[in-house]
């Protein structure tokens, strides 16, 4: 599967800000997305949208070409319209199932982002949303690959979107997901406490099986759900072998490390499989942690391939060498 167009909304004005002194820091312990003016969304539609819907639609519309429309829309979102759903449920309680407004209700479903995109762009093709929590975007990628295997002449809009909604933030805080102390994202990797910084954002891609003028190729994808560090390491080794990828051929490894001492061993175990010449990058100090942050990780990979420039603050291990660009 080849990636042809990319766009994102992130907590940074410039998503790949070169100077660490210029990056936006958390507000009230949250890395909140910097939203654009959404010129592509009709004002009457925009005012009814919740944040994740605005971000998803606002990221996708600049990529949708009226002359060469995509054949389908595939979105990954762990929560999608959950915040609107909660607002509607609160109305039901507050007004004793009486006078309820439809605005929150019509935006409260999981498929609201893909649905709105289908309506606004008049796209009547394949339209689906994957909501498998932390694997939502990965499942969307797998779906896009499967669709392209079946329909090699098609192209798809593929994306991942999630917001920090008050409800989700409270639940995850109670679950111990986030740092209790105030910490700057500039120092997140030096932290020795559990928890991460919550973030939000959206990243969208136009993908097809056509390699002409592509930005990048997704050669293979595999997901695993386990708390066993050794199993993760074994699976990554098998993944590399299965896809005929010698670890010393990999120029760059983009890690999802997020400053949480509980998950650090998983990322470190993966790094032990890499050749000593492989450069290691981290990006979650820019976007924070959220279920579909891997989508913006993919955006960073594409952007780095396009520009061949890496801001210094992304390096965990800098072994830059001019090779083929296998991430």
């Amino acid at each position: 599967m080849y990636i042809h167009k990319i766009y994102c909304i992130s907590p940074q004005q410039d998503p790949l800000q070169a100077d660490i002194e210029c990056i936006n820091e958390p507000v009230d312990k949250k890395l909140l997305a910097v939203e654009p003016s959404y010129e592509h969304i009709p004002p009457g539609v925009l005012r009814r949208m919740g944040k994740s819907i605005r971000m998803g639609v606002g990221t996708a519309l600049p990529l949708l070409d009226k002359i060469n429309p995509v054949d389908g829309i595939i979105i990954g979102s762990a929560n999608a319209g959950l915040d609107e759903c909660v607002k509607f449920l609160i109305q039901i309680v507050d007004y004793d199932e009486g006078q309820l407004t439809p605005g929150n209700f019509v935006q409260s479903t999981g498929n609201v982002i893909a649905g709105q995109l289908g309506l606004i762009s008049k796209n009547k093709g394949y339209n689906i949303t994957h909501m498998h929590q932390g694997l939502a975007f990965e499942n969307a990628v797998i779906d896009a690959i499967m669709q392209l295997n079946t329909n090699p002449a098609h192209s798809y809009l593929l994306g991942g979107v999630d917001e920090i909604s008050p409800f989700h933030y409270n639940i995850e805080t109670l679950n111990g997901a986030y740092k209790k102390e105030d910490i700057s994202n500039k120092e997140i990797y030096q932290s020795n406490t559990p928890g991460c910084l919550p973030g939000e954002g959206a990243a969208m891609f136009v993908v097809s099986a056509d390699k002409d003028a592509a930005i990048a190729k997704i050669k293979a994808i595999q997901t695993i759900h386990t708390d066993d560090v050794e199993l993760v390491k074994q699976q990554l080794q098998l993944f590399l072998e299965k896809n005929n990828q010698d670890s010393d051929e990999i120029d760059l490894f983009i890690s999802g490390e997020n400053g949480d001492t509980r998950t650090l061993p998983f990322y470190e175990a993966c790094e032990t499989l890499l050749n000593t010449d492989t450069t290691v990058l981290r990006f979650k100090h820019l976007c924070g942690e959220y279920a579909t942050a891997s989508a913006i990780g993919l955006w960073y990979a594409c952007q780095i391939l396009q520009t061949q420039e890496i801001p210094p603050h992304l390096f965990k291990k800098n072994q830059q060498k001019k090779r083929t660009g296998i991430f």
Partner: protein
Amino acid sequence: METAELKQQLKKQIIEFLNLISVKPEDIKDDEPLFGEGLGLDSIDSIELIVLLGREYGIEIKDPKEGRKVLTDINTMVAYIEEHRTK
């Protein structure tokens, strides 16, 4: 409450209920149509406005024809509120 004061309050409530981000109360003219031209509201907004009348003024509108007349502009809404409000 004086009519002028009620008009101002209603405009603020409409902006808040319908999330009219870029609209200020002074942008809404008293005799300007709320739907189609003017403020450019649509059918979902009409339900939101009927809920607004219920929650804020205790007014229940059951007849759609009556609703269309009431929701013509700020003047018609305020006249109806002054006549039928229960809170």
